């Protein structure tokens, strides 16, 4: 699991400063990776199953509504990366923001993938975003 997240997050280069490498690899990457997947999945479930099935809301199933959730997910992913890094007391470095940006992009990807898989089960939004 750690190795998986490490390979995903080190696509943007090794952690900086190098001295913090073990903390990033052992703690920060798995944390933000798991949280990112979990939150993306949760938001997809809320959009397709809660709002557009259980609650039966009929006016929140357009592409732009989906995009609101997509952007929301990216913002949360960005924030989580920064807060997790600071929680582990890593040295301040611009790398934290690069990592947060990368995490946001990964959030977009996860959200999109989960949307493709789970949209069929929704009653009102089974064709959103396309």
């Amino acid at each position: 699991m750690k190795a998986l997240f490490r390979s995903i997050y080190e696509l943007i280069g090794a952690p900086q400063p190098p001295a913090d490498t073990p903390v990033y690899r052992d703690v920060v990457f798995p944390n933000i990776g798991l949280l990112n997947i979990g939150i993306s999945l949760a938001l997809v479930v809320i959009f397709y199953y809660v709002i557009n099935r259980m609650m039966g809301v009929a006016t929140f199933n357009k592409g732009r509504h989906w995009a609101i959730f997509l952007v929301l997910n990216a913002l949360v992913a960005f924030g989580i990366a920064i807060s997790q890094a600071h929680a582990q007391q890593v040295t301040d470095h611009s790398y934290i923001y690069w990592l947060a940006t990368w995490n946001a992009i990964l959030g977009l990807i996860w959200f999109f993938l989960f949307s493709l898989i789970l949209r069929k089960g929704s009653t009102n939004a089974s064709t959103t975003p396309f």
Partner: protein
Amino acid sequence: MRHLTSFSRLLPALGLTLLLLPGCYSRSDMKTEEGAAQEAPTDVPPTEVPGAVPVRTPESAVAAAATSQPLQTVNVFLEVSGSMEGFMPKTGASGENTKFQQHVAQFLSEVNRTSAARQKTFYRIKERPYKDSYQGISTTVRSGIQQPAKSTDIPSVLDTLMSNYYQPGSVSVLISDFIYSPKNAGAIPYIKTDITDALTRSGSHPEMAVSVYGYTSDFRGTYYPALVASGKKTNCCDTEIPYYIWVVGPADAVRTFDQALLEQQPSKQAHFGVTYPQPNYSLLSKFQNKGSWYYGDAGASKRNAESYRVVAVSEASAQQPVEFVVGMDLTTLPGQYRDLAYLKQNLKLQGVDTDAKLLDVTATTSQTKASSGPESKFTHFAKVRLTRPPKAARPLVLRLQDQRPAWVAQWTTRNDATPAPKTFALSGLLDGLEAQSGAEKKPIFELPLTLQPGE
């Protein structure tokens, strides 16, 4: 009503999120989780390494147990021959005393009071040891020797100590000027052999160790040089004369005694055969570090500071060298080995297949002491630089060599006819001690590290 039920259907989604959260790691979780695993040292050097540097197993735990046990017996021997009279003159009208009197009286009192030994016995050395009480010997030091012995012969004193007083957990402490006057000048070249023979006559003691502490004191009385032919000097002297405290016994007992009673005061010192537990040491990744490297230890993020041993180098070149600092806690070593000049000269770095060099050794400063980082736990720092990344895991060892301290040569004289703060044939005496403790000189400590490429 409809709204409420739909809201309650949200719960599965929330539950799912909550289920995912505990999967996350945090440093504190891991610390407690794997606390047990940490205790087992994982610093076993990689096995595939060619020409691996021999590594001493950490003996800190064993040694700590040994140190906490008090010594069985401490036997203190004070030489009371004529040559010692000048150190212990009869108290003059003005009540002045010599440094020797002040120091030795205090030392005897400390020995008498110490909790580091169960039993303390005091002896005056004439032609053989005479048992004395603490009060008796203290009075001798303070108010002068009543009946000085003619002369005491160092080899025979050492022989007596070794055959009658050498026991596990016990030390013999010998206070003397250690002026060895052989019966004739022809014996001078054999001083070393005489000492070695004296120490081994009663049988071989592989564990035996000797610590020598040197002091100087003003001297008021008759001075007897080792070379009898040059004649004694009355009303000596303007210069200070050296005297010594030798601690003889099994290595761990000598170490315990030194630590408890002789390390507080500044002194010249030399140690023979004394072994010390491996000091605590660790790499410091955020202290004067340079270049691209990080802790390569397994589970590096959840270890306690003080136990990092593996340098993972991700990048190194002549333009961008890697520099790392090893913190060492040398508080358990005697002063001589904590001396910065000694460390700079004798701390060596040995590696395999690497250009790693020891740049500098520094002592802790008020700044590092006050630091909140792990560097506050160490007394000395060794900085290492390398410019070539290792190809595979390779051992790297910091080793403190056991060298005769420079003061021995300065305090040695071949002719002591003129009183001076030097002792006749001192280095010869110490040569004899060294020969006894074996041909091979062991390093004071070895701190194994590992260099490996960053993954």
